[in-house]
């Protein structure tokens, strides 16, 4: 049985009104920004299920944009997030969508920065906890409680071994490892969730692996 955190019960500290529809939504937006790795210029946001039905009451829209602006779930600027986004030149749109058989509090976001863009699907699963379950078409599972090393690479033998070897050399323990691809031999995604932060030197080593196309790290969020 997992140990229940004292500050999960007496907390989290958050901007109201709802841990699932507000705090979790801020974290989903923040996750998208962190994965994009730069300032968000444009966001097309599709709300599913309970998010679509009750977003206005819990300010799920405001919360998602607050996260995209880089705010955490206890940031007191959250109520002004839409105004701040417009002032910062962040274009956003909201539509309702059916994302299929997923958690009722789910969202799909296409987020663009300077030159780069990602599409991400995630759910707010209660108490401010989240799960990112799709990234650029790849199935993943990411809740923000670990450090992350993410690579896009050619789907060829040995790449996973090379990447995990680099982490081992740097003394980084992998808590969870996801590997995903769209079709055989195409581009694939590796997502290692680690107990320790990943130093720049390790990232540089991974980048030198020939089949690796891009590398990105994420802090916990």
């Amino acid at each position, binding site marked *: *049985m997992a*140990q*229940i*955190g*004292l*500050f999960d*019960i*007496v*907390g*989290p*500290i*958050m*901007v*109201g*009104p*709802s*841990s699932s529809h*507000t*705090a979790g939504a801020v974290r989903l937006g923040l996750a998208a920004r962190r994965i994009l790795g730069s300032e968000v210029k444009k966001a097309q946001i599709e*709300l599913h299920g309970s998010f*679509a*039905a*009750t*977003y*206005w*009451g*819990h*300010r799920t829209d*405001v919360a998602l944009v607050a996260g995209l602006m880089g705010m955490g779930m*206890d940031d*007191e600027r*959250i*109520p002004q997030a839409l105004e701040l986004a417009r002032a910062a030149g962040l274009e956003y749109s*909201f*539509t*309702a969508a059916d994302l299929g058989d997923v958690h009722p509090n789910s969202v799909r976001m296409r987020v663009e920065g300077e030159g780069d863009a990602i599409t991400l699907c995630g759910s707010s699963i*209660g*108490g*401010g906890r989240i799960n990112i379950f799709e990234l650029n078409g790849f199935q993943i599972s990411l809740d923000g409680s670990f450090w992350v090393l993410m690579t896009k690479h050619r789907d060829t033998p040995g790449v996973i071994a090379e990447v995990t070897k680099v982490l081992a050399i740097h003394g980084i323990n992998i808590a969870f490892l996801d590997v995903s691809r769209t079709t055989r031999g195409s581009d694939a995604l590796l997502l290692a969730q680690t107990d320790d932060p990943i130093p720049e030197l390790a990232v540089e080593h991974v980048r030198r692996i020939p089949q690796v196309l891009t590398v990105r790290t994420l802090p916990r969020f």
Partner: protein
Amino acid sequence: MQITSAVQLLELAAERRQSLAGVLAEYEAFRGNTTVEAVRERMGETLAVMRTSVQKGQEDEGKLSHLITGYGRMFAQADAEGRLLGGALFKKAILYALSVGQYNASLGRIVACPTAGSCGVVPGALLAAAEELGSSDEELVDALLVMGGVGIVSAAQGPISGAEGGCQAECGVASSMAAGAIVYLAGGAAEQVFAAASLALQSHLGLVCDPLASLVEVPCVTRNATSAAIALTAANMALAGIPAVVPFDEVVGAMKSIGKALPESLRETSLGGLAATPTGRRLAREMRERYSL
């Protein structure tokens, strides 16, 4: 170290010859891979956020809430004009709980305890009691640690969300946490802490989660105030030595069974209970029309 039940937590404290607060601080330090001092410091910061939410909740008129506005101001004004009944402690608990609950609905920064929907109960009951008792911040941090322990014991054995267990699992658990913490703050024995928690939860069993128009406003905010009052009542009964008869762990078990027996319409879906009354339906329709995507 694991905490699985009130019985087990009390045994743990007895074995280690430690106070409940001491055990809880060590539990969290071990779990979070940190120190007891860091845990206490973080709890101190949590206390500061609670206090700020009490203050700001009284100043905020509910600018961003939909159905409720000015509850804190109305209550304080009525008190100042001598229109209310009861002693200072109860009035203060009601004022604080209403203010924090409304502040949450108005996008204020609060401590979810255990949930955002029930965030006014603990600041209401516990902070009012602490002012009455003249407790120090150190004593309050101890009480908040113990309070977290009551919450962990509930979460280990039952639901702590309206979607799973109804309002008994939100305001009910919050009220039992506050009741236990007040007894601890007032110098009650460890067993009395859980007697108070048990009594408070007993008074919430069966309470459904039926918010109007899917908002955390009606009846949530006023329910936070009544749950704070129940916490004070339960704490007083426990301090008087009145037994809970049914131990806290068993009451949590009862809450869990009741939660399972509740139809989905009474578990945070806004399809039953108060949400399904003519008034509830009308307000939901008005909100939908105003905001549909």
